């Protein structure tokens, strides 16, 4: 039997405002957070320091003063390794890539235990200033940014198109935000936990029409550490774990927009990555017990739900409105609270999605536990889902 990778331990700080402004007397230091999280995750996994042979870090934000953060942390931990130690970057896909590359280290036999970890600190930088950087990430910096496009503007145009093609309403999209806030209210790691109503969602000020404040992600800081191991090691510890059953990746060969007209709300990269992941796992979308999606806006959760086949085309918003994707519904989506309420520290966001899958598949999700959760899916993406990276995980009691 071919080698398999297991997710055996996790740790994370609650998403929120952790970054200190430059003029504060006492500063929050990223490496102090990170070393505590490594210690905690490794204890959760039940492995030893010497077992760890590879570490894949997410790239810190440029606001993190300590450069070469990954190798600096190796020194803080006095951790000697013979596999790989690196920082990876892929815009919103960064954390999904960290997980994926850590899996590779184990699949290649370079490590029996590998960490995927990172920290994203940005909340002390104003949104308008942060957008000066982020506006350069999602299109052609000369031909698009010059016109004032921002990252979520592209998702807003998806929403306009989706409502036009399928007759979906603002209320149906807003139902995603209400549902995710309810899930977040049950998640101690979530940034926003106070319940909200549909009326509140649709009456928020517009950010990028038709999306309002509660349709788009908040900004926040986060950090997490995942412990991955070969299934042999995982099985020898005698604790529940989740095994990676399928993996799919697709880049559609465009960045934000294709000059050859295509269906921009089909998210074909997510369709194809999901197909590959399901094929490897030997399952179909109907077999999933939950999905933890990289969906920065309400519309994105709807479109990804359709692309990966858990909702029919044009039915994702209606499904959310009718409670199909809520805890206790047909297929719970974003049980963590999703990017809109759990929070979206972008470079580590997907680490939190795997933390949620680990909690659910190890039966440790408390009040938001999906009963009998066996198969879960997580997605990562970049651009306007121009690329998607999808993993299917299975509970191993």
């Amino acid at each position, binding site marked *: 039997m071919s080698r398999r990778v297991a997710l055996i331990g996790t740790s994370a700080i609650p998403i929120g405002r952790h970054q200190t402004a430059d003029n504060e007397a006492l500063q929050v230091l990223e490496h102090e957070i990170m070393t505590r999280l490594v210690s905690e995750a490794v204890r959760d996994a039940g492995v030893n320091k010497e077992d760890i042979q590879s570490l894949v870090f997410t790239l810190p934000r440029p606001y993190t003063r300590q450069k070469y953060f990954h190798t600096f942390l190796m020194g803080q931990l006095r951790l000697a390794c013979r596999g790989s130690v690196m920082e990876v970057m892929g815009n919103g896909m960064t954390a999904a890539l960290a997980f994926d590359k850590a899996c590779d280290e184990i699949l290649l036999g370079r490590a029996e235990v590998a960490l995927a970890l990172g920290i994203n600190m940005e909340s002390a930088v104003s949104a308008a200033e942060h957008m000066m950087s982020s506006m350069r990430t999602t299109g052609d*910096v*000369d031909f698009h940014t010059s016109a*004032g496009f921002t990252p979520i*503007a592209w998702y807003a145009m998806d929403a306009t198109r989706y409502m036009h093609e399928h007759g979906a309403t603002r209320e149906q999209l807003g139902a995603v935000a209400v549902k995710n806030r309810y899930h977040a209210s049950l998640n101690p790691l979530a940034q926003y936990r106070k319940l909200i109503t549909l009326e509140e969602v649709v009456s928020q000020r517009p950010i990028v029409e038709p999306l309002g404040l509660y349709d788009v992600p908040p900004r926040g800081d986060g950090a997490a550490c995942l412990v991955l191991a070969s299934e042999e090691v995982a099985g020898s510890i005698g604790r529940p774990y989740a095994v990676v059953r399928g993996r799919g990746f697709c880049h559609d060969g465009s960045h934000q927009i294709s000059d050859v007209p295509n269906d921009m709300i089909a998210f074909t990269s997510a369709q194809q990555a999901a197909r590959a992941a399901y094929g490897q796992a030997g399952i179909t979308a109907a077999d999933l017990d939950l999905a933890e999606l990289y969906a920065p806006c309400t519309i994105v959760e709807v479109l990804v739900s359709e692309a990966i086949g858990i909702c029919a085309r044009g039915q994702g918003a209606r499904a959310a409105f009718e409670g199909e994707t809520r805890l206790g519904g047909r297929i719970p989506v974003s049980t963590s609270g999703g990017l809109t309420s759990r929070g979206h520290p972008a470079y580590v966001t997907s680490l939190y999605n795997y933390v949620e899958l680990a909690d659910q598949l190890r039966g440790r999700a408390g009040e938001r536990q999906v009963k009998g959760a066996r198969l879960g899916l997580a997605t990562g993406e970049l651009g306007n889902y121009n690329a998607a990276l999808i993993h299917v995980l299975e509970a191993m009691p």
Partner: protein
Amino acid sequence: MSNATQLAIVPVAGTLSYPPRQSAFTQAFWSGLREGRWQTTCCEDCSKLTFPPKPVCPHCWSTRVAWRPLGSFGTLYSWTRIHAAPSVFASEAPYAVGIVDLADGVRLACRLTGTESFVLAPGLPVEMLVLLYEDGPLFAARPVRDDTPS
């Protein structure tokens, strides 16, 4: 250039909020645009148009590309109005942007202008134009009435 497409030029007070860079290759586009010339590159091997203009054909990777006029009319594929803007664009917010499908088969994204008396919606006919700031041009689109295409 023969058969050149001439866009309307609308002068705008002030300077560009985030000026595009020009290269030895793209300066033909931007300096042409300043005079209202609307063009992109076409591959001489596979005959495909691409936008923005590129020195290497993205379809067949040929480096034999030539400038060709683009059509000035199209339809709106989608749009949004940006209220939360990066600091350099804050004084312009809210502003509308959109995705335009040109009649000659090219899709692009640009600023929308002259939208006041229109209900913006996918499918709306639009016309490309040049916004000429004091320090350079931007291409943009404005809605047109179905029966008055100019």
